[in-house]
């Protein structure tokens, strides 16, 4: 019944759509702009809600009858001040930054060498190694965290930032190597050959010829790796127990949530401040970020 009703309308709609030049403005609004507006509203609303809660005074927070929940009358920085001066939040920010920088740097170093070896030195089994690297990317952290906790404990780096710096590369190296392999493939062989003829060693070729040309690829991989390690949660939750070593996601969740009374203002400012660094970084390098995300998929 429903099918029967649908088919004639579908037929007429198809007729008009077949001719793009007759696309009316109304149609376009209904088919393109309205859905787009709904999508953008839904995708961005949680951030708006997060931001507005972060600057609302406590008495307005839940008093929806007197104050419109979508607006703030007297914005306050109390929650942010509380966060910065009365909790360990600045320390968590510093930890996250340190861990993200160190693990990104380590991963980039190892990945550049590995990607160059797989793509250009072409040792025996290079293709297999490339495939294994891709498979390593598919191994999820939620399978690895228990044995890793065991190892971290036995090595004696439990509850230290070093534990995170050494374990984050497990998911960063496969990703960065895979991305850089694709990037190195686009650099012409001839450049390398002429450098070899001129007597350059492989290492010189890598640092003087390949890397300068691969800067965009390095930025893409670096930005993506940095955000991935900034966002990491399960390892940080498992390997860190003392407050001064926590990262922002773990710290906000385990230390700011106390008892049954949720301090939404402080929680939301914590979430907002913790998101800002990656969002700012992202906004400067949108194209690199998109190209690394889609590049990993397209290969």
């Amino acid at each position, binding site marked *: 019944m429903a099918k029967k009703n649908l088919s004639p309308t579908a037929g007429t709609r198809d007729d008009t759509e*077949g001719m793009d030049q007759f696309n009316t403005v109304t149609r376009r609004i209904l088919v393109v702009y309205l859905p787009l507006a709904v999508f*953008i509203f839904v995708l961005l609303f949680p951030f708006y809600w997060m931001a507005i809660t972060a600057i609302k005074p406590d008495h307005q927070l839940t008093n929806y009858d007197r104050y419109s929940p979508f607006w703030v009358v007297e914005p306050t920085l109390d929650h942010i001040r509380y966060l910065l001066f009365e909790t360990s939040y600045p320390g968590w920010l510093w930890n996250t930054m340190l861990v993200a920088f160190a693990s990104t740097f380590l991963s980039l170093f190892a990945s550049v060498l590995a990607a160059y070896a797989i793509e250009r030195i*072409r040792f025996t089994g290079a293709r297999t190694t490339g495939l294994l690297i891709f498979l390593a990317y598919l191994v999820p952290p939620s*399978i690895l965290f228990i044995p890793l906790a065991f190892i971290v404990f036995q090595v004696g780096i439990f509850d230290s930032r070093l534990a995170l710096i050494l374990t984050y590369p497990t998911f960063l190296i496969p990703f960065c190597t895979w991305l850089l392999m694709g990037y190195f493939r686009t650099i012409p062989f001839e450049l390398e050959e002429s450098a070899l003829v001129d007597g350059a060693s492989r290492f010189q070729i890598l640092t003087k010829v390949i890397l300068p040309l691969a800067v965009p690829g390095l930025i893409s991989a670096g930005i993506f790796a940095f*955000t991935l390690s900034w966002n990491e949660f399960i390892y940080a939750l*498992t390997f860190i127990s003392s407050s001064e070593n926590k990262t922002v996601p773990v710290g906000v969740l385990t230390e700011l949530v106390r008892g049954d009374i949720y301090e939404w203002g402080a929680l939301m400012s914590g*979430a907002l401040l913790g998101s800002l660094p990656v969002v700012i970084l992202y906004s400067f390098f*949108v194209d690199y970020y*998109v190209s690394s*995300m889609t590049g990993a998929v397209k290969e």
Partner: protein
Amino acid sequence: MTDVPLTPRRPLLARFLESRNGLGLLFMLPAAVFLLCFLTYPLGLGVWLGFTDTRIGRTGEFIGLENYIWLFDDPIFWLSVYNTILYTVVASVLKFGLGLWLALILNEHLPFKTFFRAIILLPWVVPTVLSALAFWWIYDSQFSIISWVLMQWGLIDTPINFLGQPNHARASVIAANVWRGIPFVAISLLAGLQTIPQSLNEAAALDGATSWQRFTKVTLPLLTPIIAVVMTFSVLFTFTDFQLIYVLTRGGPVNATHLMATLSFQRAIPGGQLGEGAAIAVAMIPFLLAAILFSFFGLQRRRWQQGND
């Protein structure tokens, strides 16, 4: 062959390091050390731990399949398997449908296209735990903004108990997961859409194909390889999701939203039963392999059948 060489032979090591394989090995060394120590070894160790009764602070002994037998009779484990499959299937289907829709919209001629693309990706960029906190506040049982708006419109009388009632909680966490996953699917598929030559669509339109026919007969087949990869990743991330559940419900109410990953964490770290937790994690592997093989080969096959590889 035993002639005296013209130049003195250099040490074996130096010669090896100049050969293709030696140099390759040297360059692979840092990555290989990291991945062997912190990826391959833990993977094997995890499988081994699943066969032991290790607890936190006590090395365990080999107990064979006891953990698995124990889990087989554990209704909570089976509930978590059911939840994980439900969560993965529903969220992936929604992410795919909505993501493809959004990608098609963004593929139109739009003003400020790059700007839209940039802000749409925000949910994917922001740390999951922190955006999940925002959802936690949006899903608050008393002061949820969604409940408030619906009450203002007169659609409901009392606030919705988003995270307190099993099926509501399931729907809520799936919604939050879809919210976070749409950008990834949409932007990746958009990149795929942009590689499809416009001329193919024009040719089909000239031959009288309707827009629906052009979509199903031209766009979708050409997009299939990318859909396969994107959805493989999406299914993989959804199946092993931990953060969202941990923030929003911690598996509650009454284990209704426990996924295998959260159950494994709960048994292993707060519960201290490392062996049992590892067994649950290992039990995820067959599902993961099946999901990868299904979405990858299932969709890849269509590509070589069409012969454009």
